[in-house]
């Protein structure tokens, strides 16, 4: 077997055991990571329900403003791109922590949190613009209710992720996040990537498809 293959197998086994390979579990995988995946599965159902509600009420508003009156596609495309790139910085943070490069790990973690903050800033700007300039409130029409609830729930998830990322960076600075417990970074990373994949769906279904 080649050296590269041995390295890949070792990395694979390390992943399967959650990075530190310390305890044996009934399923053969880390309980914390399994718990996060189960949580993400339940989140699929939550966001699925919210997206289905948006689709159900789509085009049924009897008074405006309508989606075509309020959406600013170039602006939302830029913020979607920023959130997508935050997934890249997150995976680079995990990789750096796994190599034992704590300083770069923190830089990537803070970069991820800052990119997420820019996305949330964009969402706040968008909501303010929709509400003040275009007159779309939560109870204005069916479109407003379903749009704000769906994107607002997503925004709350991103905000919680940002808080977790800043906490991770702080813990890393205090020496609490090292190569030995990189699974903590991986679990927060899974949550962050999930809010990104949900936005991929929301961006397409809510903003791009007419």
């Amino acid at each position, binding site marked *: 077997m080649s050296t590269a293959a041995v390295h890949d197998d070792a990395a694979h086994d390390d992943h399967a055991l959650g990075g530190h390979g310390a305890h044996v579990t009934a*399923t053969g995988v880390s309980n914390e990571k399994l718990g996060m995946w189960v949580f993400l599965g339940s989140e699929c159902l939550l966001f699925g329900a919210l997206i289905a509600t948006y689709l159900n009420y789509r085009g049924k508003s009897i008074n405006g403003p309508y989606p075509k009156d309020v959406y600013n596609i170039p602006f939302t495309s830029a913020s979607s791109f920023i959130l997508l790139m935050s997934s890249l910085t997150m995976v680079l943070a995990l990789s750096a922590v796994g190599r*034992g490069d704590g*300083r770069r790990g923190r830089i990537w973690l803070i970069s991820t949190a800052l990119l997420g903050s820019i996305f949330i800033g964009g969402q706040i700007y968008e909501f303010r613009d929709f509400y003040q300039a275009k007159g779309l409130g939560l109870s204005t029409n069916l479109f407003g209710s379903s749009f704000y609830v769906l994107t607002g729930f997503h925004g709350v998830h991103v905000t919680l992720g940002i808080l977790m990322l800043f906490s991770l960076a702080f813990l890393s600075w205090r020496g609490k996040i090292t190569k030995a417990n990189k699974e903590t970074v991986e679990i927060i990373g899974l949550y962050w990537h999930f809010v990104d994949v949900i936005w991929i769906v929301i961006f397409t279904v809510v903003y791009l498809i007419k």
Partner: protein
Amino acid sequence: MASNRYVEPEYHGPALDAHDKQYIGVGFGLAVLTAIEVGLYFIEKDGGISGGQSSWMLLILAFVKFAVVAGFFMHLKLDNPIFKRLFVMGAILAGFCYVAVLTAFGVFHRAWITWPAYLGFAIVAAVLGLRGSRGVGGHDHGHADHDHADHDHAH
């Protein structure tokens, strides 16, 4: 008085390894797909393609982006298959369930969507049931732990 401040061990390895370069390549690919999506939106707006064609292409692109992020960034491609089963089955179940609900509410306006949705729901439920009856993660990479646990149990 001695300081108890944490002193980080120095790291002398490379700033980016081979996996990182692969992640950057994947990130670039995702950026290109996003640009194509936005381009399709404006092509449809200018009347270059029909709304139906554009919708299908956008849905396929979104699915590809979803799969790439889940596979590479969330490590589903390399990680233990139990995670893939949990997430994929959950997502498929949710998809079929909500297609059925939306069809029932008349969103799709086509009755033929309902029956494939219900059939798909039943098939996924049956597959999940069969896998569950064989035991969780029977051939997973954590099999050594299973074997060990079973061995201890037998004794």
